[in-house]
C-alpha cells in the first residue's frame, strides 16, 4: 500500500517528517519498502525557452537559451518537442535525477550546456502515467507557469510516498482513513470526519431499480445512481493522489471510484446505467458461462466465480473485473454505483485466475460493512462535486451483515502476564483511547468495544497485541523464563555417524530431496510407489527421492565436470515412499567414493570396493553391530550396479543397505556407493558397551596359506575356521589373496590365526593340534590344500 502523505493529511495531522513517520509506523508493525518524495529529482526550476537553434554538429540536438529567473542558461536539448517560447522544467547544475544522473555544467559537441530540460519521466513519474507527448519528449508547462519557481510545487506533485508492506490481517490499513487511525494512535491525534454531504433529488431509486442476490457469497450489496455526469479530466489533486498510489488516472468518473477505494478501502464498481437495465443480480457463475471483461478478453467462467449479472447475462466478475459491455465510457451519462462485500476466499480464487487488482486485494482481506455505506455516500458526493452529477435519491440495499460491535473483556493482569510487563491501568486505557476504541470499566476489568473497521481483533490476545504495539515493544525488557530446571535432550546418533564419516575422510553434502522421476527407482530393487508432485516447478525436479544415491551421483557428475576427480562424499537425509497405501520416509546414510582415498609420498590408495565396504563396516562396528552383519549378493539384479561388485548388507537377517560399484555402462570411472537405511538399522538394539578382562598371558600368532577353488568366498572359509578353531582361536584375519595362471581355477589365501588363553601361556604342543584340526576341516569341507 502506497501512502500519499498529502492524502492522509486530509484526515490526520502529521507533523513528523517522512522518514520518522515511516520508522514510527514500522515500530507498530507496518513495515515499509521505501519512503521518498513523489518527485525525487532535486534543483528543478521553471524556465522559459527564449531561443532554440539546431546544434551545428548534430542532426537532433538543439541549442537553447533558457530564462530560469535569475539568469539565462545555455542548454543543449535533444527532445524533439523543444521550441521557442515554451515553459519547461529545468534541472540546474548539481541537480540529482532519480536514475542517479547528476547534472553538471558541460560541453556537448562543442556547445556549452549548463543544465537539462526535463521530461516528466526523467524527474520521477512512471511512463505509464504519461500522455503520448510526455512519453516521447520534455514536458511543456502551461503559459502561466512562473519562471524561476519550483515546478513540482506548481504541478502540485510535491507529495511524499511511503510504500508499506502490510501484514495479511490488517486489511483496514488498505485505506487512507485506516492509515489515519493508525497514525493518530501513534501521535495521539484525532481523526477528522469524512465529508459525505451532498444533495439528492428525483424519485427514490428503490422504485425503479432492483438488487437481487442469489448467493451466500455476497453479504452486502448497495446501489445508487448518479445522473448526468460530465466526463472530463480529474482535478490535479485527484490525479496526483492516484499517481502517488500507483493508479493511472483515466477520467473524473473512473478516477473517483478509485479515489474512494484508496480513501476508504471499499472497492466500488461504476456501471454505465443506460446499458444496464433496471436490475442487478449477484450469483455464482454457471459453468460454461462466458464473459468479456473490460480488458477485452473473453473468459470462461466456473461455478466458483461470483458474477454480477443484469438479470440475464453476466456483466462482471464480482470484486475482480468488470465487463466490457457496461464500462464507463466518454459518452456515459448516468452511473450506477455498486458497493458490495463479496466472499474473500472466492474473490481470491477468481482473481488468481484472472488478475490480482487493488480491488480484489481489498476484498480478499475483508471489509467493514459500515465503511461500505460510507463509501457509496462519499462516491456520490465526489461525483456531484467533480463530475457535475445529480444524485438520485435513495440507496437500494441488500444487507445480511452483522454490524454489532464486538465487546471483549480484558483485565490489566491478563495484559501484563502475557507481555511480561507492569503497565498501569491508566496506560492501558490511554492506548485504547489513542486507538479510538470505546471502553467501559468495572474495577480492573475493561470491556473494549472494538470498532467494526478492525476486523483483525476478535479475542483478548488481539487486544493485548494492540497494547504491546502502541505502548511500544521496545519498552518491554527481555528476561529469561523462570521455569523449573530440566535436562535438555538431543539424539546424538546422527551427529556421531556424521562425525565418524568425516573422520574417515568424507565430505558432507546437502542435496535436494526433489529429483527427476527417471531416477527415482534406480539403485534399488525395493518396490514402492513414487511420490510425484502435483505441481512441480520444473520437470527436472518432479518427484521425491527414495534413495539418496541419485542425488549423490549427480553431485559426483557436477564435480567431475569441474575436473575434480577425487570425490568422497556422504549425506544423511530422508528418502520417501508410498507402500501399501501408506506414506512414509526413512533416514538414510549414503556415501559415494571415487578416485584417491588417501595420498602420501609413495603411499596412495585408490578407492575400490573394499575401501567403501571398509567404511560401511566401520560405521556398523562403531554403532555396535560388529559380528552381526554380512554382505551377500543381491537376490535380484539391480541394473545400476556392477553385477560382480555389489552386495546387500544384512544385519541379523534383515537387509539394511547396499554397497557396490556403479555399473561401468553408467560410469566408466570406478565409482562406489553405499546406502544404509538408518531407521531399519537403528531399530535393532545393540548390547551395552562392557569391559572384557584382558588376558595376562601372551597370544601366539600363526599364519597358514591354503589353495582352494576360486569361487569359495571369504565368508565360507571364515565359517569353517571359526567352527573348527574352538576356544583357543581368539582371532583370524585374511591378509592375502593370490591368483595366477599356474593356479588355474584355484586361488591361494593366507590367514593369520591368533591363539590365546585367559588361564595360561599356550605352547606349540597345545596350538599345533588346533591348527591341524582347522586345516583338516578346510580340506574336508572346502577341498582346500595346505600350501607348504
Amino acid at each position: 500500500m502506497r501512502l500519499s502523505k498529502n492524502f492522509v493529511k486530509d484526515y490526520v495531522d502529521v507533523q513528523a517528517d517522512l522518514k520518522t513517520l515511516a520508522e514510527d509506523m514500522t515500530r507498530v508493525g507496518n513495515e515499509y519498502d521505501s519512503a521518498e518524495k513523489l518527485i525525487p529529482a532535486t534543483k528543478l526550476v521553471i524556465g522559459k525557452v527564449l531561443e532554440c537553434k539546431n546544434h551545428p554538429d548534430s542532426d537532433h540536438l538543439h541549442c537553447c537559451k533558457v530564462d530560469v529567473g535569475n539568469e539565462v542558461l545555455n542548454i543543449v536539448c535533444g527532445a524533439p518537442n523543444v521550441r521557442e517560447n515554451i515553459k519547461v522544467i529545468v534541472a540546474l547544475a548539481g541537480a540529482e535525477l532519480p536514475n542517479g544522473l547528476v547534472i553538471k555544467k558541460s560541453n556537448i559537441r562543442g556547445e556549452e550546456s549548463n543544465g537539462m530540460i526535463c521530461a516528466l519521466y526523467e524527474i520521477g513519474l512512471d511512463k505509464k502515467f504519461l500522455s503520448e507527448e510526455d512519453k516521447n519528449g520534455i514536458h511543456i508547462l502551461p503559459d502561466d507557469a512562473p519562471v524561476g519557481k519550483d515546478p513540482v510545487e506548481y504541478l502540485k506533485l510535491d507529495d511524499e510516498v511511503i510504500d508499506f508492506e502490510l501484514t495479511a490481517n490488517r486489511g483496514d490499513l488498505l485505506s487512507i482513513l485506516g492509515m489515519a487511525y493508525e497514525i493518530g494512535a501513534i501521535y495521539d491525534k484525532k481523526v477528522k470526519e469524512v465529508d459525505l454531504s451532498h444533495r439528492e433529488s428525483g424519485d427514490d431509486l428503490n422504485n425503479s431499480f432492483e438488487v437481487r442476490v442469489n448467493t451466500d457469497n455476497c453479504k452486502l450489496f448497495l446501489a445508487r445512481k448518479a445522473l448526468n455526469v460530465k466526463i472530463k479530466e480529474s482535478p490535479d489533486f485527484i490525479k496526483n493522489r492516484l499517481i502517488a498510489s500507483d493508479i493511472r488516472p483515466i477520467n473524473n468518473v473512473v478516477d473517483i471510484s478509485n479515489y474512494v477505494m484508496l480513501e476508504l478501502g471499499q472497492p466500488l464498481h461504476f456501471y454505465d446505467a443506460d446499458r444496464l437495465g433496471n436490475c442487478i443480480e449477484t450469483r455464482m457463475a454457471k459453468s460454461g458461462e462466458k464473459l468479456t471483461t473490460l480488458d477485452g478478453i473473453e473468459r470462461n467462467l466456473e461455478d466458483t466465480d461470483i458474477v454480477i449479472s443484469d438479470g440475464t447475462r453476466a456483466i462482471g466478475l464480482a470484486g475482480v473485473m468488470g465487463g466490457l459491455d457496461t464500462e464507463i465510457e466518454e459518452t456515459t451519462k448516468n452511473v450506477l454505483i455498486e458497493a458490495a462485500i463479496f466472499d474473500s476466499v472466492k474473490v481470491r480464487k477468481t482473481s488468481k485466475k484472472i488478475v490480482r487488482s487493488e480491488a480484489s486485494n481489498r476484498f480478499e482481506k475483508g471489509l467493514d460493512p459500515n465503511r461500505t455505506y460510507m463509501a457509496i455516500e462519499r462516491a456520490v458526493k465526489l461525483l456531484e462535486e467533480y463530475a457535475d452529477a445529480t444524485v438520485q435519491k435513495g440507496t437500494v440495499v441488500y444487507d445480511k451483515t452483522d454490524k454489532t460491535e464486538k465487546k471483549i473483556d480484558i483485565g490489566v493482569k491478563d495484559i501484563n502476564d502475557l507481555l511480561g510487563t507492569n503497565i498501569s491501568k491508566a496506560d492501558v486505557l490511554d492506548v485504547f483511547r489513542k486507538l479510538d476504541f470505546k471502553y467501559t470499566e468495572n474495577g480492573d476489568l475493561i470491556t473494549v468495544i472494538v470498532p467494526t473497521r478492525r476486523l483483525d481483533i476478535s479475542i483478548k490476545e488481539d487486544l493485548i497485541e494492540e497494547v504491546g504495539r502502541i505502548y511500544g515493544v521496545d519498552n518491554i525488557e527481555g528476561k529469561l523464563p523462570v521455569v523449573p530446571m530440566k535436562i535438555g535432550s538431543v539424539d546424538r546418533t546422527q551427529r556421531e555417524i556424521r562425525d565418524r564419516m568425516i573422520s574417515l575422510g568424507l565430505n558432507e553434502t546437502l542435496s535436494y530431496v526433489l529429483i527427476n522421476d527417471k531416477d527415482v527407482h534406480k539403485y534399488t530393487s525395493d518396490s514402492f510407489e513414487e511420490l510425484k508432485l502435483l505441481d512441480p516447478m520444473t520437470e527436472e525436479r518432479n518427484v521425491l527421492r527414495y534413495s539418496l544415491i541419485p542425488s549423490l551421483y549427480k553431485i559426483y557428475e557436477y564435480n567431475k565436470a569441474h575436473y575434480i576427480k577425487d570425490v568422497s562424499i556422504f549425506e544423511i537425509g530422508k528418502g520417501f515412499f508410498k507402500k501399501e497405501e501408506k506414506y512414509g520416509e526413512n533416514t538414510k546414510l549414503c556415501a559415494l567414493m571415487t578416485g584417491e582415498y588417501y595420498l602420501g609420498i609413495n603411499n596412495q590408495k585408490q578407492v575400490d570396493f573394499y575401501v567403501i565396504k571398509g567404511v560401511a563396516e566401520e560405521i556398523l562396528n562403531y554403532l555396535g553391530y560388529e559380528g552381526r552383519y554380512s554382505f551377500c549378493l543381491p537376490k535380484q539384479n539391480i541394473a545400476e550396479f556392477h553385477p560382480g561388485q555389489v552386495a546387500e548388507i544384512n544385519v541379523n537377517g534383515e537387509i539394511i543397505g547396499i554397497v557396490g560399484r556403479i555399473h561401468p555402462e553408467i560410469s566408466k570411472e570406478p565409482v562406489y556407493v553405499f546406502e544404509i537405511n538408518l531407521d531399519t538399522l537403528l531399530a535393532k538394539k545393540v548390547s551395552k558397551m562392557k569391559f572384557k578382562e584382558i588376558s595376562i598371558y601372551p597370544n601366539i600368532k600363526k599364519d597358514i596359506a591354503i589353495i582352494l577353488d576360486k569361487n569359495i568366498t571369504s565368508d565360507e572359509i571364515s565359517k569353517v575356521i571359526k567352527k573348527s578353531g574352538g576356544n583357543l582361536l581368539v582371532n583370524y584375519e585374511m591378509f592375502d589373496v593370490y591368483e595366477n595362471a599356474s593356479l588355474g581355477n584355484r586361488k591361494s589365501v593366507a590367514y593369520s590365526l591368533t591363539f590365546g588363553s585367559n588361564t595360561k601361556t599356550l605352547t606349540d604342543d597345545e596350538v599345533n593340534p588346533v591348527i591341524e584340526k582347522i586345516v583338516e576341516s578346510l580340506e574336508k569341507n572346502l577341498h582346500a590344500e595346505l600350501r607348504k
Partner: protein
Amino acid sequence: MKEKLEKIKESAKESIGKIQNLQELQDLKVKLLGKKSELSTMLKSLGSIAAEERPKIGSLVNEIRNEIEKSISDAEKALKEQALSQKLEKEKIDITAPGTKVKRGSKHPINRVIEEIQDLFVSMGYDVVDGPELETDEFCFERLNLPDGHPARDMQDSFYITNEYLLRTQTSAVQARTMLANTEKSPIRMVCTGKTYRREDDATHSHQFNQVEGLVIDKKELNVSLADLKGTLEVFVKKMVGEKSELRFRPSYFPFTEPSYEVDVTCFKCGGKGCPLCKKTGWIELLGAGMVHPNVLKMNGYDPEKYAGFAFGTGIDRLAMFRYGITDMRYLYTNDVRFLSQFDRKDEE
C-alpha cells in the same frame, strides 16, 4: 724381551689405528690376543725365562695385553658410533616434504550451524525433536490456526503430492505434533531443526531450505511471557550472530501466534550503518516469533486458560551464510567439493 714386548705394543696400536670396520677389528683382536698370538706365545714361554725376571716380565705382558684390549675396545666403540651415525645419516629424509595426507572430511556449514543451535537450546533445557518432512495439511496448517482457504495454504506456494500430503513449508508443523504427542499435557520446551520446502527458487530463495523452530509452553502461573521470549531470542541472536547484535521486535502477523512479531537484528554486514544488504535500514529481518495463539493451544489439547507459551522460528541458511561469509546461497546446495572441503576444521571458539 722387554724390547720385543714394546714392539708388539707399538705394532698392535698401529694395526688398530688402521682398522676400518668391526669385522676387521674382530679379526685383529684374535690375531693380537688370541691363543696363537705373539703375546700368548710369549706368556707360554715365560717358563724359559729366569725365575727372578718372570714376575716382572709377566706383569709387563699383562700390562701390554690390557693396553691393547683397551685400544681395541676404544676402537670398537668409535667404530660402532661411526656405523650408527652412518646408518642414521643414510636414513636422513627431507622433513619438509609433506606428511601423508589422511583424507580429512568436512561438515556441511548448515549442519555446523544446526548443531550449534541444538547445543545452545539443550543447554537451556530444551529437547531437540524431529518431525516428518512429508507432512499432512492438518499438521502443517490446520492445527496451526490456518484454516482452509487461508492464503498461506495456497497450492501454488507449496509442494503437494496429494490434496492432503505436502512437503512441510515450515518446521512449525512440529509444534502441533509435539503438543499432541504430549499426552500428559505437561510443559514443553523444544526446538526442531530441519529441511523445509516452498515453491520458489531465485537468487535469494531456494525451494529447499532449513529452519529452526522453538516452542515453550508452561503453566500460566509461571508467566511465560513476551518478555521471556525477548530474553530468549536475545540469547540466541547474541550467540549466533554476535554479542554486539541488537534486536528489534516489530509487531506482525502469523496465524499461529498472537501477538506476533518479526524480529530484526543489527545488519550483519554493516553493523547498522546501512548498506545494500539491509536496504539501508541497518536491520535484517531474522526471526518470526510470538505468543502461542489460544486456538493453537486448544486445538492441540492444551487449555489456554491454564497454559501459555511462546514460539519462534528462523531460517538457518542465512545464518550459515553470515557465519562463514558465504556470498551466494547456491553454494549451499551445489556441493562443489572445493566448497565443501573448506569446512574441514573446528570452528573457532
